[in-house]
């Protein structure tokens, strides 16, 4: 760690410190996902692998501004946000590799993991579905007299076309719930470009239709993301009702590791929107003198070592055993007995 960062750390929180913390989480997410991709190519992962490459800045900004006791329902490309909210390298690898010790016990996998009791909701595949779910969680918190909590969920540009997005945002707005919906407008939904996804000028305009505060951000810029997302989360926390944030960026990989993403227009990669947020943020750190290039390389090497050690450990853990599985979908065993 550079002397400047050490000095600032002891001087208390400042924007540089938060930026560096966010960067290091982004880096961990990136390195972990590189490992997941390698494991996928080696045939070691049970299902699909979906990467958040290029989306780390927006995602981490959500997780980093949430407090313990808040609700977070991340989506496919939110490895960075998940880690900022407390998810670990260990549990990520356990879930992807199908270890029975993972939070989902092999019953669900990869991006569908969560620990709902800790406010970390486990997404279902159906896009948009987590918006009303988080809203309901917030409603229950309100019934309990809890104030100052926030619920956040993320989705892509494709997800904004679902009924659940409209219904959920509208219902949350009616109740003025502290819900923050973060849209990663990564230009494609699977292979479908924005031009075939929506006809409005800008997705953030949808906020007006629901009576919701709308925010727009350049999601290749970590500093802008931290500021915009942090501001929106603070506004929701202070009672400002639902917030919609739209971050513009480019998905730098295919939809999943099975998809080479050939449909991505190469011109987009050369534009501002196609910048790699991790590289951009790293350059800012070096430029501001918060750390050196060597520090950055060292951080990467540290995470890589941790990821590799953890992957080796997890690969020796037991897989779920069908003989031990109770094959019961309800908690009420007495009634379940009648199902036979």
């Amino acid at each position, binding site marked *: 760690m550079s002397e400047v960062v050490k000095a600032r750390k002891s001087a208390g929180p400042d924007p540089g410190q938060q930026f560096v913390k966010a960067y290091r989480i982004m880096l961990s997410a990136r390195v972990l996902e590189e490992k997941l991709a390698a494991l996928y190519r080696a045939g070691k992962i049970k299902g699909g692998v979906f990467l958040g490459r290029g989306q780390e800045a927006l995602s981490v900004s959500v997780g980093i501004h949430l407090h313990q006791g808040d609700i977070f329902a991340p989506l496919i490309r939110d490895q960075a946000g998940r880690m900022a909210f407390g998810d670990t390298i260990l549990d990520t690898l356990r879930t992807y590799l199908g270890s029975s010790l993972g939070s989902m016990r092999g019953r669900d996998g990869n991006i569908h993991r969560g620990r709902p009791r800790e406010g970390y909701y486990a997404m279902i595949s159906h896009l948009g579905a987590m918006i009303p*779910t988080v809203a*309901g969680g917030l409603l229950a918190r309100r019934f309990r007299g809890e104030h100052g909590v926030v619920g956040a969920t993320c989705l892509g540009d494709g997800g904004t076309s679902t009924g659940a997005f409209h*219904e*959920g945002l509208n*219902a949350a707005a009616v109740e003025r719930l502290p819900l923050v919906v973060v849209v990663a407008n990564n230009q494609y939904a699977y292979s479908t470009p924005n031009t075939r996804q929506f006809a409005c000028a800008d997705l953030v305009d949808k906020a007006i239709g629901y009576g919701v505060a709308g925010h727009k951000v350049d999601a290749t810029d970590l500093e802008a993301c931290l500021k915009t997302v942090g501001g929106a989360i603070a506004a929701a926390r202070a009672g400002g009702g639902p917030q919609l944030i739209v971050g513009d960026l480019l998905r730098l990989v295919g939809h999943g590791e099975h998809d080479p993403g050939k449909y991505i227009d190469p011109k987009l990669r050369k534009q501002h929107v196609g910048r790699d947020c991790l590289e951009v943020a790293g350059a800012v750190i070096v430029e501001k003198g918060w750390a050196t290039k060597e520090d950055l390389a060292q951080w990467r090497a540290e995470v890589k070592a941790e990821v590799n050690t953890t992957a080796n450990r997890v690969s020796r853990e037991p897989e779920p055993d069908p003989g031990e599985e109770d094959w019961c979908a*309800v*908690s*009420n065993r007495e*009634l379940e007995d009648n199902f036979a």
Partner: protein
Amino acid sequence: MSVTYLEAIKAAQDKALADDHRVFIYGQDVGNFGGAFKATEGLAQKYPGRVLDSPLSEDAIMGMAIGAAIEGARPIVEMQFADFSTCGLNQIINHAATLYYRTGVNCPIVVRLPSGGTPGGGPFHSQSMEALYAHYPGLFVVTPATVEDAYSMLLGALEIEDPVIFCEHKFLYNHLKADSLPTESLPIGKARIARPGRDATIVTHSAMLHEALAAAEEIAADGFQVEVVDLRSVKPLDTDTVLASVARTGRLLCVSEAFPWGSVCAEVIARVTAEGFGLLDAAPQRLNAKDTPIPYHPALWGTHRPTASAVASAARQLLKG
């Protein structure tokens, strides 16, 4: 004093709201208006802030209920008509039904579905969805046929830590009356012998119970005693009580108001033939609604769904076989 089926449902919700501060009711027009059928009338005034009008958004209603349940609340959702629950189907079958299995976190939700046909209800206000929901692991599906069951099974459903689809029948709302509400009741998951008999068994549930009982009465004049089993709950399905009845009578007719393909009747007959083939003296029969959308005109509707006389003639056929 006399209580209707609808009043029993309201009374159960009133008791639940009074007894358990975690309970709240969410649905279209359930607040000051008291619900399209008045099943929540007066409750918003009595429990301020706990009986909430929702927007016209079945998907959001169910999603909100699931989130609230994750956080420890006990939501009762009123779907205005069972038919519209299909707009919330994704949240029910993919989210509520899978939550416990996937995450170990309970999803204690009661979804009230005003179900079944009424004269003039037509294709979109008359459907019986119990087989659809019973298809999915992780959901309980109950179909009370009496005032007493409407009350006690709704309270029972609220005690279950898993999602319960509560199919209440609209035709019964103001049609059925009981002298009083029960203090004791059969648990959810148990079927009931609604009328004992020795010559044939009719297995049924919900509003068809009353058609089956009328049919049994009619056939009694011919000298046959038909046993009527009220399933009460569709999932769990009390196969033991059904098999015990078939063991006594040797003949089975299953009657349900739903469409025939993959209906509750299909499931009951599959189980009885698999587990009790040797008990049968004749091929088991079923009687369902016709395999068309539910017609609007009362004359067509009255023929579309099984009636007491249709049940009686199916039972007479079975007794001949």
